[in-house]
C-alpha cells in the first residue's frame, strides 16, 4: 500500500524536485488546501485513501523548510500548519473518551473530502476549458444585423390622476390666494383722527359706542372692526393725557370725556 510507504525513502528525483519547486514557487500556490492537494498528489494515491498523517508531516516539513528559506508565508499556511499539527497529535494519541467534539478521524475524513472535492473541481475546470469555445472553435455570425427598434408610444393615466385633475378644476375658486379685505376694516389711525375731531364737542361723559362712524354699525363685521379701532384709539388718547376713561363694571359700557 502506497500510503504506508515511507515517503522520504521512496522519493524519486522527480518527486524531490517537485518538493523543491514547491518552496521556490510558493507564490504560485494560493492556499493551504492547494498545497495539501499538490502534496497529496506526490503520494500517488487515491485521495480517499491518503494518509492524513503523512500529509500533515509533509506539510509541516514544507512550512519548516520554507521558513528556513525565509520565504514569506501567508498566515493561511501557518493556520493550516497549526491545525494539522493538532490533527496529527490527535491521530497519534489514543482517543480520549471524555473529549468532546468530532474525532480526529472525522476531521481527517473531512480533510480528505475537501481535497477530493478540490481535485474534482480542478478536473472539471480543465474539462470545461477544453470544450468547444465560442470564438475559438465555433463562431457567431460575423455580420450581425441590427434589429431596428420601432418605438410605439402609449399614454397612460390613472384613475387617481383623473380624479385629482377634476378636483383641481372644480375647486380652483376655493384656492384663491388670501387677500386682506380692506373695505370692511376701520383702522386705528382712522379712529384716532375721528375721535380727535369729535372729542372737543363732547362736554361730559359719553359712551364710546357713540363715536362709531356712520355706516359701521349695521354690518356686524364692520361694527366689530370699528369698535376695536375706536377702543384702541381711546386707550392711546388716554395714555397721551387727552381723555379720561370710565367703566362701571366688567363688560359694562365704556365712557370717555375730554380731560380738562
Amino acid at each position, binding site marked *: 500500500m502506497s500510503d504506508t510507504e515511507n515517503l522520504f525513502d521512496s522519493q524519486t528525483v522527480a518527486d524531490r524536485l517537485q518538493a523543491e519547486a514547491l518552496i521556490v514557487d510558493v507564490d504560485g500556490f494560493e492556499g493551504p488546501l492547494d498545497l495539501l492537494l499538490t502534496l497529496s498528489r506526490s503520494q500517488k494515491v487515491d485521495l480517499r485513501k491518503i494518509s492524513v498523517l503523512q500529509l500533515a508531516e509533509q506539510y509541516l516539513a514544507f512550512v519548516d523548510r520554507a521558513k528556513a528559506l525565509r520565504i514569506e508565508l501567508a498566515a493561511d499556511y501557518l493556520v493550516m500548519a497549526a491545525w494539522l499539527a493538532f490533527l496529527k497529535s490527535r491521530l497519534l494519541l489514543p482517543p480520549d473518551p471524555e473529549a468532546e467534539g468530532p474525532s480526529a478521524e472525522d476531521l481527517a475524513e473531512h480533510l480528505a473530502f475537501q481535497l477530493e472535492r478540490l481535485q474534482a473541481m480542478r478536473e472539471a475546470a480543465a474539462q470545461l476549458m477544453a470544450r468547444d469555445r465560442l470564438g475559438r472553435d465555433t463562431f457567431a455570425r460575423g455580420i450581425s444585423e441590427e434589429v431596428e427598434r420601432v418605438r410605439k408610444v402609449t399614454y*397612460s393615466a390613472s384613475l387617481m390622476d383623473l380624479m385629482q385633475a377634476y378636483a383641481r378644476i372644480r*375647486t380652483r375658486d376655493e384656492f384663491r390666494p388670501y387677500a386682506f379685505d380692506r373695505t370692511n376694516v376701520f383702522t386705528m389711525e382712522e379712529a384716532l383722527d375721528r375721535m380727535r375731531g369729535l372729542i372737543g364737542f363732547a362736554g361730559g361723559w359719553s359712551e364710546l359706542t357713540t363715536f362709531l362712524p356712520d355706516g359701521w354699525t349695521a354690518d356686524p363685521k364692520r361694527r366689530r372692526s370699528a369698535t376695536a379701532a375706536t377702543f384702541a384709539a381711546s386707550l392711546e388718547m388716554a395714555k397721551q393725557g387727552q381723555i379720561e376713561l370710565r367703566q362701571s363694571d366688567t363688560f359694562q359700557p365704556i365712557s370717555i370725556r375730554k380731560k380738562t
Partner: protein
Amino acid sequence: MNDEPEQTEEKEETLFAAPPIAEQERMVEAILFASAEPVRLREMEERMPHGCDPAEALVHLRKRYEGRGVRVVKVGDAWAVRTAPDLAFLMQKETVEERKLSRAAVETLAIIAYHQPVTRAEIEEIRGVAVSRGTIDQLLEMEWIRFGRRRMTPGRPVTFVVTQEFLDQFSLESARDLPGLKELRAAGLLDSRPLPGAGSDDDEEGEEDEAQTGQSELFED
C-alpha cells in the same frame, strides 16, 4: 455532388485530394457566416485546404439557400449571407413606450367623464382655458372618448362622451362610479399636496353613500 466519384478516381490526387464538394460547401458556408465582411473567392481559396474550388461550392450553396430565410448574395466581387428581403420586417422590434398623459389631456378627459355628454365650449368653460384641438384628437385616437349626440341647441354642437375602452382602462363599470366632489374632498383629493396614495383608498370606500349624493349633483341631466 455527381462529380465526387470522378475526383476520387484519380489515384495521384487521393493523397492530397481536395475534400469532397459537399465538405467544401460546408466550409464556404461557415466562412461566409462567420466573416465580418463579404469574402472574395481568392480569400476563400486561401483559407480552405489545398485544391478546393470555392466557386463550385458556392454554386451548390447558393442553390441550397434558394427560397430560404437567408440567401447567399454577391456583393461587388465578394460573397456574403444576407436575410431574404421579404423577411426584413423581422429585423424590427416594436418597443412600446408608456408615457404619462399631459395635464391638459387628463383634465379634459376628467371633465368629459364627469359631465358627459359635454361640448367643447362647456369643457372650456369648466377648465377656464381653451382646449386645443390636439388634446381632443389625442383622446379620440386613444379611443378613450368618442363623439356623442349633437346638442339640440343653436349651432348643434357635437358632444363628447367616454368609451367602453376608457371604462375598461380605469376599471369602472360606468362613468357614474366616479367619485363625487364630496368624496374627493373626504379622500383628501382636494388637497393641493400630492396624494399619499393607497391610504386614501380606504377612505373612499367608507364614503360611498356621500359619493352618491355628490354625484347626483354633478350629473344634472
